[in-house]
């Protein structure tokens, strides 16, 4: 049936809340969207075509990946059978690879023939996209045509899309902001006032920028919308999973239980200790990340807060 329809302009892979939110946003901006979802879910949007077939998604030239990072490799490998050099592949996965600290776009390059790649970042949240509340998103790609295609697909009155060519920087910034957001939630719950919170955020951003420089990214990407901007949203976003998790940890909720409370997958949990190790290897001063690592390992909250600030 779909064979006779015009090719969709955007394919979204990932039937979770983030994938659905992105599909909704693209639909709102006027794109013809096909969503790949393995979940059998009834949809309230009758105009959205949902499929379990990767070939269907690959009919779109622009494909957006929105799956949790642990399954990304498998999904990309299966999807890769249907992709070619003409595809523009963009991912909205916050996190860095489990083996090394490879980015998700490194995975895309390994698992698919696509080369015109990009990543989504910035402060925008799933809820905002679903409800159409105004927000901002960043697309990072070295290819201007990828930035143009994503802007065309998603930009509308309620969503502003900004472009950067520091793809790797944006991916690192998003991942590190995920880590720091846990710290923000933690500090808020542990009773930090605005001054201390501001100091923590500024220091955390500074450290993240240094880490990024050590990883071969542009420092200033961390100071932009995809880094600082994204992190600032954590202050206000009560329901951001990382913030929820941080708050729970500050209340001495055990990690497993705290993860359950965050509802969405928090990519930062396995990442934080690896970032702390990376900082040590590269001799980058990153006390905030070390403190976060201790918090996840069950360190005492007040002592940790002190260390985040003084360490």
């Amino acid at each position, binding site marked *: 049936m779909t064979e006779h329809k015009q090719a969709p302009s955007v394919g979204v892979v990932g039937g979770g809340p983030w994938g659905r939110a992105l599909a909704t946003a693209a639909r709102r901006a006027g794109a013809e969207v096909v969503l790949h979802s393995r979940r059998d879910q009834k949809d309230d949007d009758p105009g959205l075509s949902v499929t379990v077939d990767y070939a269907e998604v690959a009919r779109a*030239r622009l494909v957006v990946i929105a799956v949790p990072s642990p399954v990304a490799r498998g999904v990309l*490998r299966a999807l*890769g*059978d249907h992709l*070619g*050099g*003409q595809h523009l592949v963009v991912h909205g996965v916050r996190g860095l690879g489990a083996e090394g600290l490879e980015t998700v776009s490194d995975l895309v*390059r*390994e*698992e*698919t*023939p696509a*080369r*015109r790649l990009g990543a989504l970042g910035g402060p925008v949240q799933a809820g905002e996209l679903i409800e159409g509340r105004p927000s901002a998103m960043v697309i990072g790609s*070295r*290819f*201007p*045509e990828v930035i143009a*295609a994503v802007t065309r697909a998603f930009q509308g009155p309620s969503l502003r899309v900004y472009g950067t060519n520091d793809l790797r920087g944006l991916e690192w910034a998003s991942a590190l902001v995920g880590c720091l957001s846990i710290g923000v939630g933690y500090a808020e719950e542990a009773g930090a006032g605005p001054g201390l919170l501001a100091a923590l955020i500024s220091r955390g951003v500074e450290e993240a920028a240094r880490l990024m420089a*050590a990883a*071969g990214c542009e420092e200033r990407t961390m100071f932009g919308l995809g880094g600082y901007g994204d992190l600032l949203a954590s202050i206000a976003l009560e329901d951001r999973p990382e913030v929820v998790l941080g708050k729970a940890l500050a209340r001495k909720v055990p990690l497993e239980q705290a993860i359950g409370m965050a509802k969405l997958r928090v990519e930062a949990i396995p990442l934080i200790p690896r970032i702390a190790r990376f900082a040590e*290897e*590269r001799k980058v001063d990153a006390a905030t990340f070390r403190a976060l690592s201790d918090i996840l390992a069950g360190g005492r909250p007040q002592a940790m807060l002190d260390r985040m600030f003084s360490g």
Partner: protein
Amino acid sequence: MQDDAPIFGFNAAREDIVRAVVSRVVLSTKDPLLALNDAAYHETKRLEAQKRSPEEHKELAEWQRLARALGRMDDGERREKLASFVEHIGWDVAGNFDPRVFKVSSKLLPPIVTYLLAPRTLARLARDPRRLVSLSALDDKVRVEGPVEELRELSRRGTAVYVPTHLSNMDSIVFGYALERAGLPPATYGAGKNLFTNPVLSFFMHNLGAYRVDRRIRHNLYKDVLKTYSCVLLERGYHSLFFPGGTRSRSGGVERRLKLGLMGTAIEAYARTLLANKERRVYFVPATINYLITLEAETLIADFLAEAGKGRFIIEDDESSRLGRVTAFMRKMFDMQGAVVIRFGKPIDPFGNVVDERCRSFDRRGREVDPASYVKDEAGRVTLDPVRDAQYTRELGEEICKAYLRDTVVLETHVVAAASFERLRRASPAGDLFTVLRQRDVVVVPRDDLARDVVKLRDRLVELADRGGIVVGGYLRTASGGDIVERALRAFAGYHASPVLAPRSDGIAIVDTNLLFYYQNRLAAHGMAWDVIAPPGMPPARPPVFDKPTAQEAAQGGAS
């Protein structure tokens, strides 16, 4: 040998090629006033800065006249001026290729060497070249490795871009010889103009398919002509050779960052064959050229240390311009088995995909992919897009650098230099590079100790090689530490002006610290030697740990 490769018809096509280049550059120059002003500015600056020949005095005066006149010219006059200037550059760049000279010289390389060793034999040589032809004399001195069969097959189906590492002015000659040995057709390449004036090397440069690149000329029109020339050659199926490092590696290290300009022309060339409905695929062949000793090591490392990374573009008076040094180098080459190893890597397409012998592209999961899909826009049309292609080329550059690491062939001098240099570092633990280098003829290492260090490092290199991270040859794998040290001593002795390592009664004296630094740098990017040569903005490779027992030693209960 394929006599049907396009280069054998180059002379007939030359005028046509230059004409194509000229018209394309002239058409794509949007503002002739800007382009000519830029050229006049850079040329005036260059000519004013140097000692001038009468010829160049005249040239300078012409440029000054042109700069004054440009403003008054109308657009038609400017276009005319542009066309004639571009044509002038085009002919200056265009090479020559004489198949007779090529055949004779590729066969004659060993006799030429003989001539260098004993000039009087040239008379005999001229009477009957065949009498002296003995290619086999070089067979075990210069080793050629890699997927040669596959490359032969590929060269009939697509256009090759060879991208080797660059250490020495000998590289283009040695690489040309390797192509001949591998049964591959010759490749055209841009050789620095100084090589054409080098009294020793010019013989090889003329008539062997080289085109001239004058790196002193900095203006954009010149760069446009070079790129367009390279593009037109590739489009027409001429196999090409680029040294993407740009200049010879000053440090002796493997290139970690490339100059992408000329490489970038490959995608445009490929897209143009598609647009003309004459698809001809282009593939890159990374390669490493590995020397037991490097002809110009002393000059290069001195330049590296003097300017710490800001290497001069052109060194006019290095060892390669001195007949005596070239002769000594050649003699050394004949004396040592495996003195030079050229290793071809796996061919890849301009988008980083693996290529098989039928010139089909496969992604990293082994799925065939159509290379044309990378240059198509959303409507499925092939487009020329320099910004897009620059990004592809940037990623290709990263792939090529990875290939360089994998295909680096470790030789005895590198291992012994790295082990000796580590001793120097330990002798001044807190020292920066220059403190370490100052310890000339201070440290003496007992032979057995050095041999033991060498074995440890060798074992670590073998581990890396077994993971595909570097190449360690058969001899180095099995030889004793003492033998490896001996061979390195023999390689250094008698070529470099002063001793590098000197045998003494109490051990081996570390004498020429600069040269040891140069040779150990070959292993720096692999994390197998001290890495103080990482390019700016790139983290250094992690240093080797000499004292950590290898897996084998640990199993034996720490025998050392």
